[in-house]
């Protein structure tokens, strides 16, 4: 299975989900993620799975809730406006500790926005777009290979921690074609004795009215899981940081542009590298702080008005200056703009 195949990001994610053993997909069409439901509608029946084009994103995430409550691996995908509709279900999944994978191939917003890739959903993804005290694991791939690899891994993470795992991709990544080596399944097994339909008369619920502190106790149970995830699941990439004077911080498609800018800046004799968070929650705060030691400045680059930059500031806590360059509305930052900004620091 180690052959390289040219695949669209969206298709690579869909096939990776099938490799991970996901047999239940529920979704509603929205650009730029349509290749995922289209691919699933064809592939899932071939492997004995079920595809339903739901009546809405709200229905889709609740179908995932039902499928997941049986212990089956299931997923949905959408793009920004649809992910907004899924927030109700995500909150309920988080409350009931049901594992599932949600892919957001995000687009420009707010509102209907446009259909180009964007990073305006960072706050929604990492701060919990739904109600209540909960977290979702958020993985941010930057190329098609990583999109496939992280989708596969997302199912293991979801089952291990009984959490919703959100893949935050963007329209550029979803639509782009790149050679991909499809990942191999991990083969990990998970105990799902909480599921319904296994003869244990289990309840999957989120209402806790009594005793008075019942919900508080449940919140602390969730917190324990989140604390564990914060120590155990931290992914990031460092690139050319060792001798760098300036640190670019970017995730997803923005990081690709930063890579280009770094090459050109280094050709001009300016030492730059990047720190690329891959888990946006948990955010690699300590690792970024360490990476920033001895640097002169951080430039955070996003396809938004500046959202992740808040986490970057939290990470370094005033120890070095943090600048921001971003462009919202489905536009891509150009390497030239990043180069110009960094040159202005000299």
């Amino acid at each position, binding site marked *: 299975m180690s052959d390289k195949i040219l695949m669209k990001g969206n298709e690579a994610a869909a096939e990776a989900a099938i490799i991970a053993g996901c047999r239940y997909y529920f979704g509603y069409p929205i650009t730029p993620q349509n290749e995922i439901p289209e691919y699933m509608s064809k592939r899932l029946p071939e492997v004995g799975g079920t595809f339903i084009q739901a009546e809405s994103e709200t229905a889709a995430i609740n*179908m995932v809730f*039902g*499928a997941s409550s049986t212990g089956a691996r299931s997923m949905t995908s959408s793009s920004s406006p649809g992910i907004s509709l899924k927030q109700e*279900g995500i909150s309920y999944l988080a409350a009931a500790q049901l594992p599932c994978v949600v892919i957001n191939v995000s687009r420009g917003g707010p509102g209907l926005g446009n259909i180009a890739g964007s990073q305006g959903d960072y706050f929604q993804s990492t701060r919990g777009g739904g109600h209540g005290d909960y977290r979702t694991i958020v993985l941010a791939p930057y190329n098609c290979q990583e999109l496939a690899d992280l989708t596969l891994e997302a199912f293991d993470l979801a089952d291990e921690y009984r959490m919703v795992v959100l893949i935050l991709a963007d329209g550029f990544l979803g639509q782009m074609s790149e050679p991909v080596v499809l990942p191999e399944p991990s083969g990990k097994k998970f105990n799902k004795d909480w599921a319904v*339909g296994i003869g244990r*008369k289990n309840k999957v619920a989120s209402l806790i009215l009594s005793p008075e502190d019942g919900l508080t106790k449940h919140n602390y149970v969730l917190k324990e899981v989140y604390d564990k995830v914060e120590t155990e699941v931290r992914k990031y990439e460092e690139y050319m940081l060792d001798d760098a004077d300036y640190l670019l911080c970017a995730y997803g498609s923005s990081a690709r542009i930063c890579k280009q800018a770094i090459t050109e800046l280094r050709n001009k004799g300016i030492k730059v590298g990047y720190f690329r968070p891959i888990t946006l929650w948990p955010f690699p705060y300590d690792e970024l702080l360490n990476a920033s030691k001895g640097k002169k400045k951080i430039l955070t680059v996003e396809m938004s008005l500046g959202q992740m930059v808040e986490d970057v500031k939290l990470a370094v806590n005033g120890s070095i200056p943090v600048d921001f360059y971003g462009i919202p509305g489905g536009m891509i930052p150009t390497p030239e703009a990043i180069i110009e900004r960094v040159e202005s620091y000299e």
Partner: protein
Amino acid sequence: MSNEEIVYKKSPSMMERETHYCPGCTHGVVHKLIAESLDELGVEDAIVVAPVGCAVLIYDYMKLDGVEAAHGRAPAVATGIKRVLSDKIVISYQGDGDLLAIGLGETIHAANRGENITVIFVNNAIYGMTGGQMAPTTMPGQKTTTSQSGRMADDVGLPIRACELINTLEKPVYIERVSCHNGANILKAKKAIKKALLNQKEGKGYSFVEVLATCPTNWGLTPKKAYDWLEDTMIPYYPLGNFRDQEV
């Protein structure tokens, strides 16, 4: 050996527990009818999807697996469960706000897909759980906390008839409206619920039973007067009977 004969015993599918329902509330009756039907059909591993509404704790009163859906989403949740566990009986139990207001989309589309599930719709013409607000099935002129002068059709339209609505779709195999305001009707309700569950067991497809029910507390009536009000006011608007019983 005594000559006594057991003429009634509590359904083994019911828990030994008092419900939280108000006196004269018919949710408990409907639970019992579901439990008895499951017993009689020999089903021990049904999965009930609880609504958001007064019956949210249904899974605490029955010896079943229970999944609690978000408000109105029970048919979608039931769809997800049933598509994985096609050999289990999956019941979506819903109130009028749940099924006809916030969850109308999920209701219609699960019915239209012909999901092999059983939907039990408890129509008490009001939002019970939240304290008696107007429902899609609140009767014309009926006073609720959000229609304090009575439901006015000119302003908010007339009550929605769920069976008739679902009867416009091709896929459902069984649609029936029953009531549980007196013994004779409770027996008919039981028959309908059992048939709807049997259909699922036999893989026939989507079955829908609407049960006219009472909410004495929020109607501001005694239990006896509530049964009378149901008979006099609701039944003329919501005719009882079978709308579809398709052999497939």
